[in-house]
């Protein structure tokens, strides 16, 4: 307690940020891959700033044609270089290198780099030494960063020195990072990291790439994934548009691909399966892709949990705003701020579209061959060409005219693969392999040697290396098949299927 007239300093708790917080902590919340995407986002904003009419709501189909960036990955060095206008020196001085965005900083209309953290965080994540070079129409500069010495420095001077450079070459920015962090070096050297990065860029920058923006990864020019929904024969995808508190929202949903046959968790993976789910796109940048989680209401609010049965569903919701702050993304741009009211309102509509599909996949179980025939005769339409439609329509279920029974059993996958190979197509689903065991072309149901002989001699495929039969577990018939096929190598395998080894 203070007594008399003594002046007492008030107690305070030190809340000054440490530099290591930015170097060690912020970098933990983002993957290396997403850091690289953050840097690509900066290139895209630069391109929009540079192009004529770049602040417009809609850009022409080839708006980005003159702009590109290239990413170089190796064990010793990371580089990203673009021709997207460079950073004006006054922006560099005041804003570009600040941690967090200054509210006074000019905002990029319809931009994708919004939190003022991407470039710094990427540098810290990747390595210890970085050089940012920028060339604009009027000047050029370099900012060199030595992360450890900067982080060790005491005092409140957080600045990075800017060195002016001689102006030359196309306006653009180049970030070069060396002295890579150990784990990062291993990743950047790996061929599969590069392949995955290319795959993710194809998917998540699809809109930009389709509008002509060029992204090279180690000299490979990335091609965009094109999203399509199927239409016809009772299938009509939804395309709902509305404006919500200054944000243009558009929701697409429909059948992206013909559903796979196998609905079990062990089902053979397919590209369609990997692509199914919801996509959320903010200002043309994909934030979440092929989502099958609660974030897009799977397993929540009356929607069933994701199940392979729902493969084939594709939903895309796009949010577009001249003020990127209004969009529901997190700082990593890899997740949705699910507390966003804007997003919640979109979810209500998304939920109904999802339920249309889940109900349809339940009904189609009644007669899968008939459903498949209809699904396969639909045609794929790119998102941009889909007409506006408030609902997602699916064919009405037909009344079954046959009584069907479900048969389900398990076999080691290696054996199923062997039968698949014997049947002549690696594309066959487990269901089709199973069906072949009961198909009309097998020896199933034959009870006389005569039938077997006839079948064996008439079946051209029998002469190929491997072929499957089902002679009713009857060794006598197996012997007959051996005799008539002229091979002793026919043997009984699982469930009465005979195979030539």
């Amino acid at each position, binding site marked *: 307690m203070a007594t008399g007239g003594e002046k007492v300093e008030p107690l305070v708790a030190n809340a000054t940020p440490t530099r290591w917080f930015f170097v060690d902590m912020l970098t933990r919340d983002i993957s290396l891959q997403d850091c690289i995407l953050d840097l690509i986002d900066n290139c895209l904003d630069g391109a929009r700033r540079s192009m004529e009419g770049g602040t417009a709501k809609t850009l022409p189909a080839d708006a980005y044609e003159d702009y590109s960036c290239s990413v170089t990955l190796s064990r010793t060095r990371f580089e990203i270089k673009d021709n997207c206008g460079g950073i004006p020196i006054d922006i560099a001085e005041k804003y570009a290198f600040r941690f967090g965005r200054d509210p006074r900083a000019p905002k990029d209309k319809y931009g994708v780099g919004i939190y003022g953290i991407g470039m710094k965080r990427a540098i810290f994540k990747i390595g210890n030494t970085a050089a940012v070079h920028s060339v604009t129409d009027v000047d050029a500069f370099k900012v060199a960063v030595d992360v450890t010495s900067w982080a060790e420095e005491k005092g409140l001077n957080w600045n990075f020195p800017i060195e002016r450079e001689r102006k030359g070459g196309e306006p653009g920015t180049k970030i070069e990072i060396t002295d890579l962090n150990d784990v990062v070096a291993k*990743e950047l050297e*790996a*061929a599969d990291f590069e392949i*995955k990065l*290319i795959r993710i860029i*194809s998917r998540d920058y699809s809109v930009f790439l389709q509008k002509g923006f060029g992204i090279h990864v180690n000299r*490979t020019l990335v091609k965009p994934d094109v999203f399509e929904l199927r239409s016809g024969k009772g299938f009509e995808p939804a395309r709902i548009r509305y404006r919500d508190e200054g944000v243009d929202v558009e929701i697409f949903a429909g059948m992206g691909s013909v559903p796979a046959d196998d609905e079990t968790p062990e089902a053979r993976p397919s590209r369609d399966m990997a692509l199914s789910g919801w996509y959320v796109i903010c200002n043309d940048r994909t934030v979440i892709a092929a989502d099958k989680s609660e974030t897009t209401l799977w397993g929540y609010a009356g929607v069933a949990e994701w199940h392979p049965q729902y493969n084939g569903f594709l939903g895309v919701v796009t949010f577009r705003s001249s003020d990127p702050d209004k969009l529901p993304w997190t700082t990593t741009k890899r997740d949705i701020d699910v507390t966003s009211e804007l997003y919640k309102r979109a979810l209500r509509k998304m939920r109904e579209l999802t339920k249309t599909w889940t109900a349809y996949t339940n009904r189609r179980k009644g007669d899968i061959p008939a459903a498949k025939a209809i699904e396969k005769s639909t045609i794929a339409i790119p998102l941009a060409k889909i007409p506006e439609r408030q609902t997602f329509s699916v064919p009405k279920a037909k009344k079954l005219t046959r009584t069907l029974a479900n048969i389900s059993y398990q076999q080691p996958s*290696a054996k199923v693969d062997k039968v698949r190979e014997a049947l002549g197509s*690696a594309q066959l689903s487990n269901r089709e392999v199973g069906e072949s065991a009961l198909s009309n072309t097998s020896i199933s149901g034959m009870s006389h040697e005569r039938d077997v002989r006839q079948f064996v001699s008439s079946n051209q495929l029998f002469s190929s290396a491997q072929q499957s039969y089902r002679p009713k577990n009857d060794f006598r018939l197996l012997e007959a098949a051996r005799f008539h096929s002229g091979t002793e190598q026919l043997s009984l395998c699982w469930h009465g299927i005979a195979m030539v080894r």
Partner: protein
Amino acid sequence: MAHRTLAIKTLISIEADDVGYARATFNAPLKCITVEHGYTTDVLPTLNLDRHKSIVWLDHDTGAEDSAFRDISLLVENCKGGSVVLVTVNAEAKRVQKLIDASAPDKVTPDQIREYLATKMGDVVPTTLVEEDVDDDGYPKLIRRILETALKSALRLSGRRLEFLKLYDFTYRDGPAMATVGGLLADAKTVAKVTADGSIANWPGIIAETIRTPPLTMREKMAFDQLLPSSAKLVESTFEARAGFPLTQEQISAYVDYYSLYPTFAELQL
């Protein structure tokens, strides 16, 4: 040979096929050879690969996309540092084309092959394939690239502080093309030691061209051997003069390159 030349005392052979297992057991020439019955995927985890440095060669006759790919993770996750692992797979382009479309294998496109491989193996498959990647010569090279990526990727994902030093990378063809990739799993220090003197550059296990050794009879082999080693290039006429019949220059060169490694089998009546 592994026992006699390298003095390896524990030899394990894995056979899935019932008959193959019985025959391998019957034919095992040494007591120190154990034959395990089952699929590699099931047997490998039971072998305590983490206890001893091993040489593990998974010599599959199937493609890379099947159990070979699944086994790669098992190998790099479990083998003790200092082990050498090799994977051999069938890399015949026609095999995969037939698998994709048995009725029209010739019409299968590079994209279809990519799709098929990527579905089974994911991001170890390059994002774009062109005709040269999937023709008879290109496909084994593509598979070798994929195997190498798969080995390195699995090792990285295992979180082990080991590196993969590639020691084997070649295609062998005396029937269908067989692709082999392998190397040493070891810590950075050991890898640095192995590579320090630069002699690794002369290591013969990494071969760009396909190894095609001509099938020869014992007498033909002896005729060849009497002309070798030779500082001058062994040409068609020299061989023909010795043997009385011609072989192509390609066959001759192939034999000259690998004559010291050419397997010799003899039939004996006991």
